[in-house]
């Protein structure tokens, strides 16, 4: 007679590895049709080490407890008008960018992990991906719930879902995930689990969560902590996948290296928007973006790639260029948004004198020389009653879709222009990294949905920018966009604070 209750070890076995079965009358290759075409060789799936060490029933229990605590805090936050405790209404603009840029890609992560959670031949990998898939869906939901309180009191949070695959800057994270999800299952895991969640995730979450804490946003701090314990599991999956692929077959090494190179570069381009939040959008600063890069990439990443060297893996290509550009990235990105503040769904502004001095101190090599003069010009124009809004549309990189604002490492007054011709068509890139990614898979990237080109093809609801913004982006023009100064957000805040 079987024991009434399984011990932990048996239960774990039965609820994970035992969910697989031998195929007696179907061809295994047909059941897992995406497993081989990327060229990855798996000789023994049983060597996969489960990164989560969780069974479904334990998973539900933990997650339910986390949710209970989280929603109790959301309720308290709403009842106590928690939004009045933030440092400054400018802070909410970072949340607008987060909700439009991060929440929808959490949803894409959910979709991507659900897909690969079906497609791997190894049951260990399937179970891990399915659990992560559910985690990611939870992140989407908790973020929406946390932000819905802010949506009652601030502009620009009402149509994040409609904007995410249309608006010019949202297309950057959106296309990043489209690229990963339209790749094979192993590249997807390398892209998202390893490069994004293992190597770069702290650069996204730490600034946000510490930023929220420094700026009195308890709702964001709470969902951040709640998802951080999930993230820890996701990082373990990221590390497991790269080690597993490298240990399975030596032919996997060059394929993995190529993905490491590609996704590191794509990741740094996506992080431009985070760099600007840290240095420019947080009224109370945590640390500079440069410092975050040193701690979370150079130190942590350096140790990681030292560890991977024994498999023959080298640090990502162009890591030296990326690191040199970290002295420029946030300044160039915020200037990009200040230029196009008329077409953004959040507010932009000139940093205060105190903030300009903080930037000089944090970026002694670059800020006064290259960036302070831009703000002096902006101040001069604003004082003359001509707040500078750029009138044209920017040139975009065909790979990362960021405006081509990058400058040469050896001459930061010169923009980087790279291009190639493919089947008689010209393509332009912000960097050698983006150029190389295109050249490696041109048939994929000739299909890039570049927001500027789409507007000019007449596919976005109108010929003039205001119609595009109103009809296609779903923005409240004159309310959501333009400078922080004089915005309805700012006026309401002053009323609340004087009441």
């Amino acid at each position, binding site marked *: 007679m079987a024991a009434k209750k399984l011990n932990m070890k048996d239960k774990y076995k039965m609820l994970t590895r035992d969910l697989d079965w031998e195929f007696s009358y179907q061809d295994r290759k047909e059941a897992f049709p995406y497993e081989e075409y990327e060229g990855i060789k798996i000789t023994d799936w049983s060597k996969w080490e489960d990164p989560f060490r969780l069974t479904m029933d334990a998973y539900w229990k933990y997650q339910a407890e986390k949710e209970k605590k989280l929603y109790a805090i959301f309720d308290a936050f709403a009842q106590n008008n928690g939004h009045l405790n933030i440092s400054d209404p400018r802070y909410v603009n970072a949340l607008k960018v987060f909700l439009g840029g991060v929440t929808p890609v959490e949803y894409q992560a959910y979709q991507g992990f659900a897909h690969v959670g079906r497609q791997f031949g190894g049951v260990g990998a399937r179970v891990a991906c399915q659990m992560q898939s559910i985690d990611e869906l939870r992140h989407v939901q908790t973020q929406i719930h946390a932000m819905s309180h802010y949506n009652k009191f601030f502009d620009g949070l009402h149509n994040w879902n409609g904007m995410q695959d249309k608006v010019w800057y949202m297309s950057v994270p959106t296309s990043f995930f489209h690229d990963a999800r339209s790749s094979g299952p192993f590249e997807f895991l390398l892209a998202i689990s390893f490069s994004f969640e293992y190597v770069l995730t702290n650069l996204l979450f730490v600034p946000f969560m510490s930023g929220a804490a420094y700026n009195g946003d308890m709702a964001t701090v709470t969902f951040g902590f709640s998802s951080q314990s999930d993230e820890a599991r996701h990082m373990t999956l990221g590390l497991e996948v790269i080690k597993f692929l490298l240990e399975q077959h030596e032919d996997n090494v060059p394929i993995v290296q190529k993905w490491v190179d590609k996704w590191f570069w794509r990741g740094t381009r996506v992080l431009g928007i985070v760099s600007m939040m840290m240095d420019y959008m947080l009224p109370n600063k945590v640390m500079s973006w440069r410092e975050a890069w040193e701690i979370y990439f150079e130190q942590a990443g350096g140790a990681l790639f030292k560890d991977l060297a024994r498999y023959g893996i080298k640090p990502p290509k162009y890591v030296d260029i990326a690191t040199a550009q970290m002295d420029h990235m946030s300044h160039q990105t915020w200037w990009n948004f200040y230029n196009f503040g008329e077409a953004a769904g959040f507010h932009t502004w000139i940093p205060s004198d105190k903030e300009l001095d903080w930037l000089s101190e944090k970026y002694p090599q670059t800020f006064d020389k290259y960036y302070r003069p831009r703000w*002096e010009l902006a101040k001069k124009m604003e004082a003359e009653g001509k707040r500078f809004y750029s009138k044209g549309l*920017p040139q975009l990189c065909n790979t990362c879709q960021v405006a081509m604002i990058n400058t040469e490492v050896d001459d930061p007054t010169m923009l980087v222009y790279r291009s190639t011709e493919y089947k008689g068509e010209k393509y332009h890139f912000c960097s050698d990294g983006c150029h190389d990614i295109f050249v490696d898979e*041109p048939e994929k*990237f000739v299909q890039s*949905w570049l927001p500027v*080109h789409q507007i000019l093809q007449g596919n976005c609801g109108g010929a003039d920018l205001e119609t595009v913004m109103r009809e296609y982006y779903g923005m409240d023009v004159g309310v959501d966009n333009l400078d922080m100064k004089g915005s309805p957000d700012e006026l309401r805040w002053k009323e609340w604070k004087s009441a």
Partner: protein
Amino acid sequence: MTVKTTAAEYIGEVRDRVENFHGNQLVYVGWDRHLMFCSAFTFLVAPAASFRSLRDDVMAGVFGEHPEWPTINWDSVRWLLDGQPFTPELDKTLADQGIGHKSLLRFDTPELHGFMNAGV
């Protein structure tokens, strides 16, 4: 190298081919060392437009915001078309002088060093 797919041959749709611009074409224009403008611009133009109208209407419409724009000495401007030195002919069409769809045109104003001489 081409895209790895399960299909034998995979051809992507060229989303920005010139036919999709209804008789017009794109041209990108950047003013070197004038980073008041965070990047080059993308313009929709007719291939039969003259260079003069590109410069004096289209470009002036956006670059004209710069305090140095009215002081440009056009005789000393150095142009690059798709990376090659280029001498525009003002009254010839764009198409007739090789400015094609998605061409990149850069101009450098050697006497002007930007706001506060900082390349801005």
